[in-house]
């Protein structure tokens, strides 16, 4: 399970870093992509559009490095739920937009055919995130260096008493 955790971290974290980095160079486009969902009021759409790419890169980096895995996985899961809700909602309302998941965004005439696959992808990543929330311990994680616990080596009797 520790190895499965590592794989989950690398896949989910890698996707976040990739998605965030693609969006970072163009905050304007990222804001437009958020706005295209027609879910958030103007000012909030601007803030979310500017904040998301940074948050994605940081969450992704935390997962890849294995830093505060449980917390990062919670944030990751919450974001995926939000994205799935967003895509389902535009799909249901018949709005055809590029999801803006990896940069881009805005009107896309083929959007409807892409929504199911986008939802499936986000659902799979959500599942991986939830797995990490439940079992955050994994191989090669900074957490195991930073947060040592005596529980692992309880058996050792205290030396000074002998």
């Amino acid at each position: 399970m520790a190895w499965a955790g590592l794989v989950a971290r690398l896949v989910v974290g890698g996707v976040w870093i990739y998605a965030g980095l693609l969006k970072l160079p163009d905050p304007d486009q990222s804001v437009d992509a958020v706005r295209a969902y027609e879910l958030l009021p103007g000012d909030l759409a601007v803030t979310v559009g500017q904040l998301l790419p940074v948050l994605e890169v940081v969450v992704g980096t935390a997962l890849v490095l294995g830093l505060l895995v449980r917390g990062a996985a919670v944030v990751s899961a919450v974001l995926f739920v939000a994205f799935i809700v967003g895509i389902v909602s535009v799909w249901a309302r018949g709005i055809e937009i590029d999801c803006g998941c990896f940069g881009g965004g805005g009107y896309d005439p083929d959007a409807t055919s892409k929504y199911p696959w986008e939802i499936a992808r986000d659902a799979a990543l959500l599942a991986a995130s939830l797995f990490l929330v439940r079992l955050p311990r994994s191989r090669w994680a900074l957490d195991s260096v930073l947060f040592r616990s005596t529980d692992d080596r309880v058996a050792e009797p205290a030396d000074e008493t002998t």
Partner: protein
Amino acid sequence: MSKKTKAEERAARAAAALAERKRQERRRNILTGVAVVVAMVLIVGIGFLINKSRDEGGDEKAADTSDYELAVGPEDAPHSIVIYEDFLCPICRQLEQLSRDPLAKLAEEGKVRVSYRPFNLFQDEVRRPYSVAAAAAFAVVLDRAGDEVAKKFHDLLYENQPSEGGPFPDADWFVDLAVQAGADETDVRPGIEDGDGKDWVEGATQASDDLGINSTPTVFLDGSQFQDYRTMEDLAGNLVAAVD
């Protein structure tokens, strides 16, 4: 007896030492955790502020006059609205449908000056030709037939907007619409057929590009970008409410 006590004592001391060590570790772990969280929040916060400042770089300066526009309403109107648009952009069409009549009325009443600035946003092979041709035809009509006919032509272009994926109409179609808008066919046909307006489109596109405008519609109210909307209904409604 005494041996057992000694053993118990030793176990008790070991347990106490272990508990103490665990306490210290827990304390250290919590501190480390807090430090990491604070560092991450700081990084996100700083990154967000950097992103925000980069995003707002191009916002404020776009609404001065332009050589590439059709303006409606008196120059000294108390409010100004500038709309950057592409004739092939479906959302622009939506905004047009929702805002055209109220804005025309407000402009007539002298409450606002509305500047339409069409340019070629779509740079891909499929959409670029129509986007350019429509804006070029608009430039010809504006040049040869005047503002009023050009406004009507502008409105007709949106009313009859083709689908983004094509098929796209030919020059005759533009000429027909121009005539319908009130232009004299002999005035506009040669210009539209020869693509005389293409330089204008290039200039308009360059001007928009220089301002960092990379989506349409981009709307400015009294000099600053108007972002207070969720849907085009909101945008049209809020715009009209702001200047009325």
